[in-house]
């Protein structure tokens, strides 16, 4: 309940006060009062409006007390707080402005990520620190620095104009997807957090196909997370226990993907979601997957995508063509390049070469599950 309200309340306060720190302080105070009162007096009919009004009043009181400080923030004269009308529809939803501020490319990427989780996701600094395996002190500094830069450099609290929007939206999508992928490596459930953020964004930008595309992609992947690991071991798509898939979430993800398609979406997130959707079928149409990877490669120019396309070509029944495609790629420092070559060579019966490729992959493997997986593959040859 509190988590759901946090982003909207904070966004409204940043818009009202023009100052991130002050807004956060006021929001925290209002949430603390609510935590104390609501269990006794009951939840108000319009909890969002109640929180915003209470926080505004608190902030205004403080500003009145610190009149000299007030002259330094753009807030003169002090606005009057309205306490009588509690109606959530009267509180303008300014979360989109907040998202674009938090994901501004002038901020370091790690700052964008931390601030988005704190401001929109309502996560505590300690939780974000745990998720990224850094000390709370480090995370606090990261957040403070990002907020200081917003204030000092005049990063706007606004949705960018049409000429800037595509580029800035890409930055926002990249931050959310980064949060999702951190979650995928299995520490804290940042995956669910990223999906929540994706839902907020898609809700705020209902006409943007890539916002829906990203959300669909994350939902369909997330639905399979329990099947990806057996204990600590990685399980490949082929060997996954499909009874562990969350079929309802896959269906929900596909509905979001349909929405993106209706909007004419053909961007990279939409294509990736379409691939994820195909891979979540009972029988996978590998030629179709390969075709979508080709489109994705055209869009991104990425060698890693080409590698994935090659895997799909092999799955579609042509490991020789796949190996030819893989051998043309310049990915020598990439673990999955060598593990994929190993697998293709094994299928083509070239065991000695397969062993060499798997050994090279093993040299590059950083995590224990990956190392175990590759060692098992080597032993089976």
């Amino acid at each position, binding site marked *: 309940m509190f988590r759901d309200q946090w982003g909207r309340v904070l966004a409204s306060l940043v818009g009202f006060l023009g100052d991130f720190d002050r807004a956060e302080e006021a929001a925290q105070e209002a949430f603390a009062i609510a935590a104390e009162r609501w269990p006794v007096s009951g939840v108000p009919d319009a909890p969002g409006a109640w929180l915003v009004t209470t926080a505004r009043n608190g902030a205004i009181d403080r500003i009145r007390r610190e009149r000299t400080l007030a002259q330094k923030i753009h807030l003169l004269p002090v606005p009057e707080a309205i306490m009588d009308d509690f109606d959530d529809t009267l509180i303008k939803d300014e979360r989109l402005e907040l998202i674009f501020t938090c994901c501004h490319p*002038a901020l370091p990427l790690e700052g964008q990520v931390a601030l988005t989780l704190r401001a929109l996701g309502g996560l505590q600094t300690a939780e974000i620190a745990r998720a990224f395996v850094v000390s709370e002190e480090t995370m606090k500094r990261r957040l403070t620095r990002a907020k200081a830069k917003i204030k*000092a*450099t*005049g*990063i*706007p609290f*606004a949705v*960018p104009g049409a000429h*800037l929007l595509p580029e800035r939206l890409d930055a926002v999508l990249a931050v959310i997807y980064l949060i999702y992928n951190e979650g995928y490596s299995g520490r804290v459930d940042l995956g669910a957090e990223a999906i929540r953020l994706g839902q907020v964004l898609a809700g705020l930008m209902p006409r943007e196909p890539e916002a829906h595309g990203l959300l669909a992609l994350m939902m369909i992947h997330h639905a399979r997370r329990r099947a990806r690991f057996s204990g600590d071991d990685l399980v490949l798509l082929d060997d996954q226990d499909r009874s562990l898939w969350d079929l309802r979430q896959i269906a929900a993800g596909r509905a979001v993907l349909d929405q993106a398609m209706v909007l004419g979406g053909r961007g990279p997130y939409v294509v990736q979601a379409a691939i994820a959707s195909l891979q979540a079928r009972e029988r996978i149409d590998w030629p179709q997957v390969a075709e979508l990877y080709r489109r994705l490669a055209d869009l991104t120019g990425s060698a890693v995508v080409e590698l994935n396309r090659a895997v799909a070509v092999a799955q579609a029944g042509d490991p020789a063509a796949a190996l030819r495609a893989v051998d043309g790629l310049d990915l020598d420092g990439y673990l999955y390049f060598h593990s994929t070559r190993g697998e293709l060579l094994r299928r083509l019966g070239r065991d000695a070469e397969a062993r060499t490729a798997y050994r090279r992959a093993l040299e590059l493997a950083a995590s224990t599950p990956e190392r175990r997986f590759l060692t098992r593959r080597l032993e089976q040859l």
Partner: protein
Amino acid sequence: MQYALLIYAEPGYLETSSDEEREAAYAEYFAMADDDRYVSAAQLQPAEMATCVRLSGGRTLMTDGPFADTKEVLGGFCLIEAADLDEALELAARVPALRFGGTVEVRPVVRL
């Protein structure tokens, strides 16, 4: 608020480009100066003309050359007035030196 656009580029980038390119770049610099948002601007003489001044034990030390020995040097700057960082970044993106591989550092000016 005010921002400084600090223009870093390889020395002599304009001399080595074609006449048309150079003339186009100059025209753009002049057009920028006509924009009301530009408070002031200056092109600097080459870095070899620089002298650095330091204090050491109460004595003034002078050395020949720029402060940092890098490939790209500070070649000029503009002071602009912009509503927010986005507007400042847009103005920065128009600096012709960028097309010649230069970099523009955007720094808000301290308000007194």
